[in-house]
């Protein structure tokens, strides 16, 4: 199972190790972990974004898993990778908690890095998850970021 949506935390070291376990052709495993930020710096700097006390992640059961699998399939078509693991948490999380992990195994580091970044960029813009932050001023749904659309867009010109 390369894609999971779950409430439970995950063990990124174990997931990375599983991608190369029992084989001797994996030379590179790149990974990414996203975590909940309190955003206190932004709050203090701008005076607009109150600190995040917690975050609730909503998803679209069924479609979310399919969308993630489609992103993984695309990465496997575009680059020569041996294995991919994606885990995204849902439910209520606190600052410092892990939200998402992506790990990619390949023979060489170039493919592993690029596929890992691609998956994160597409996940951010194409997988149905929504974040609601709890702040001292109440709850607020996180707005989609232009920079994420931009990051995802840079992959469009490449081979599909």
């Amino acid at each position, binding site marked *: 199972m390369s894609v999971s949506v779950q409430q439970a935390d995950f063990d990124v070291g174990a997931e990375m190790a599983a991608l190369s376990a029992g084989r001797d052709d994996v030379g590179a495993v790149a990974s990414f972990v996203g975590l909940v930020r309190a955003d206190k710096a932004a709050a203090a700097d701008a005076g607009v974004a109150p600190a995040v006390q917690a975050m609730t992640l909503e998803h679209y059961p069924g*479609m979310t898993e*399919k969308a993630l699998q489609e992103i993984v399939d695309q990465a496997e078509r575009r680059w020569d990778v041996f294995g991919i693991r994606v885990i995204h948490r849902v439910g209520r999380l606190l600052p410092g908690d892990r939200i*998402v992990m992506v790990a990619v195994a390949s023979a060489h580091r170039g493919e592993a890095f690029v596929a890992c970044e691609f998956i994160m960029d597409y996940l951010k813009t194409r997988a149905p998850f*929504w974040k609601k932050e709890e702040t001292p001023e109440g709850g607020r749904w996180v707005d989609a970021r232009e920079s994420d659309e931009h990051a995802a867009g840079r992959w469009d010109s490449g081979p599909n």
Partner: protein
Amino acid sequence: MNVRVLFFAGLREALGTGSESLALPDGIATVGALRDHLAARGESWSALATTKNLRSAVNQLMVAADATVKEGDEVAFFPPVTGG
């Protein structure tokens, strides 16, 4: 024509419901027409017209407003995604 409609995130909260099964009147054959039909209910349903960059999916695949809706389809409306 009978369809199931789903709403997520801020839109779900604005509408006060996450899903609905409904029989569509004749002439509503696209996602955009379904959206307009629901928005025309007024009150909180106008959120379907005012939500910025509203996204839609048919049978769990992201689609544009001109996508066809058929008997038994699952149609979802939601704001731009913010996972990761």
